[in-house]
């Protein structure tokens, strides 16, 4: 939900005309703060700031664009507050959408060593001999999810 709100904000940041300050700058700052939260750099007090900024942008913007742009943030914070809390408190993304907060991990029990994941990995982050358990190097992994899609044995999971 956090990344969803960020997606919508990205659109309004792009499409704001720039005439009034809350929409021009406020949406940008809102987007930046959501970015921080998505990257696991958010603090609990940021949620209050997020809400305050959203309310002020709604309250002071000149036209319908700015008056509605923070709605996704506000409604998602209200209805999915636990997701936001998970981001700032546990540095986790329950929906598995925030790349900075997720890891693809190979479950040794399920992995049969078919090498399909290693072959599909665009950055060669997966190593392992044929018929042996494979391993994802988290330093290299770009979290594209290609291995996850490819694996037929449910051996890759998101943490």
């Amino acid at each position, binding site marked *: 939900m956090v990344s969803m709100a960020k997606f919508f904000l990205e659109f309004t940041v792009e*499409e704001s005309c*720039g*005439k009034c*300050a809350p929409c021009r700058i*406020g949406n940008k*700052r809102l987007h930046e703060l959501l970015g921080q939260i998505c990257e696991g750099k958010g603090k609990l007090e940021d949620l209050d700031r997020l809400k305050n900024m959203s309310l002020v942008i709604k309250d002071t913007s*000149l036209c319908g664009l700015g008056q509605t742009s923070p709605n996704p943030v506000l409604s998602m914070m209200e209805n999915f507050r636990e997701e936001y809390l998970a981001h700032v408190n546990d540095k986790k993304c329950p929906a598995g959408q925030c790349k900075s907060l997720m890891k693809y991990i190979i479950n040794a029990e399920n992995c049969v060593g078919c090498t399909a994941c290693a072959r599909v990995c665009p950055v060669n982050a997966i190593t392992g001999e044929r018929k042996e358990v494979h391993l994802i190097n988290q330093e290299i992994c770009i979290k594209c999810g290609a291995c996850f899609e490819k694996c037929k044995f449910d051996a890759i999971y998101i943490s």
Partner: protein
Amino acid sequence: METVKLTIDNKEIEVPRGTTILKAAKELGIEIPTLCYMDLHDLNIENKPGGCRICVVEVQGRRNLAPTCSTKCEPGMVVKTHTARVLNARRTVMEFILSDHPKDCLICPKSGTCELQDMAHRLGIREIPGQEFAEMSTYRKDTSPSIIRDLDKCIMCRRCETMCNDVQTVGALSAFNRGFQAAVGPAFEQNLEYSSCTYCGQCVAVCPTGALTEVNHVPQVLKALNDPTKTVVVQTAPAVRAALGEEFGMEPGTLVTGKMTAALRALGFDYVFDTDFAADLTIMEEGTELLDRLSRHLKGDKTARIPILTSCCPGWVNFFEYYYSDMKDVPSTAKSPQQMFGAIAKSYFAEKIGINRKDMVVVSIMPCLAKKYECQRDEFSVDGNPDVDFSISTRELATFIKQANIDIRNLHDEEFDSPLGESTGAGVIFGNTGGVIEAACRTAYEIFTGKKLERLEFTELRGMEGVRSATLDFDGTPIKIGIAHGLGNARKLLDDVKNGKSEFTAIEVMACPGGCIGCGGQPLHHGNSDIIKARAAAIYTEDRKKPLRKSHENPFIIKLYEEFLGKPGSEKSHHLLHTHYFDRKDKILVKK
């Protein structure tokens, strides 16, 4: 008049229909803070895009906060200007604005006179949350001959845009980009130099931040003053003396002619002269040209073009060279007083004191930013040596005086040097809208009719109306005078001339609203048009105090013609004191 009753902060008030909440609150003594808003009501100039959202208040029954600058009072409205919701919104919006503004206040040219700084102070902002990961909108810096644009500091108040488009109709500045990267500048983010900009400086005069400032020439002047091989001559424009005091905390409209002269001498200028002298000279040349064209016209000479247009204002010259280049033969060919002064100083006066023009540096103190560009024009130099070397604004002079540890308030009045410091009241009023044509009429009347002018003050030519007209009686010959200040107003008169509909004999144009007193290089008025009116009054006071008030009676002008020029309009006069005009669109293209 229809009125509406409303309540603001529990106080009832009745105002005429159409009044904004901001103005109604002001009547109640409630000062709602504003940032982008600007109202020069005497000049009929208003900027209220409703963009900064600082002036928002709570209006009962409305879902959102309302900007008071552009929300009109309605019957029964209940307005609250300082609820927690309002104050929080105002602070948050201000934090937004500051989060995208450079924090180099210490070294910003606007420091101390910056309206954004003032507002941050007023709202008590002490920190800007999230600054550590906040991206800033950045732009290329652009320096033109007169104006520096540093758009990193633009807060999109749109005042410059209003001045450039609605008031001046120059059309050089408009908003570009959108969203976070939006700012104001010439089309396609071109340099100002390649746009239709006239350097009138009205954008600089209204910019609340350091986004638009003038090019600083003080260091060059300082260098010249410290060069023992140079004789440094300074001239001061009439409007400077009526405004300089404001920079030192004096009341608007305080005349500081004598103190300014003393300060300039203390700064080390070898000769402190007055542009007013050159203004008197301009009247002789321009007045002669007018009378020549008029009498030929009256005799039926079709080649004599009427009306004649004044040519003292460099912003105005830039404007018609760009937009009316097909009418180059209409304006007077007389140079502006600044350039006439330079030409005479580096010829007549240099000869008189026995030095080479290359060893003389002429500095002008001007209210105007277009003068910086004007003195750099190729046609105003001899073998690469300009007639006027540097032009600095009233504001630059003030900082220069402060840097030199001069306490101008306690200086004793001093007189200008002779001969180029002697002037009449006619030269002084050049600083006000209508002043040039009034000065010209004082002289032209006496020469044309051969009679003595009894009533010196042509009050019908004065005022702050954007376009004014009056018919003067030159002993039976009606002389129709048109006056415009602000280039948008000039455009109206010019279009009539272009379409052959103009009935005027002579038209005076000054690019800036109010004339030179309202120029872009003057102390900042911060949207208070009373300041401009006070300066205008000061100029007329100075005129009244002068023993001589007609240019052709200036004994040093008479002497200049006897010793050097011959007579007005002579070959030598033409060589030194007249110019020709260009198609500026072509010039800009070549430069590009």
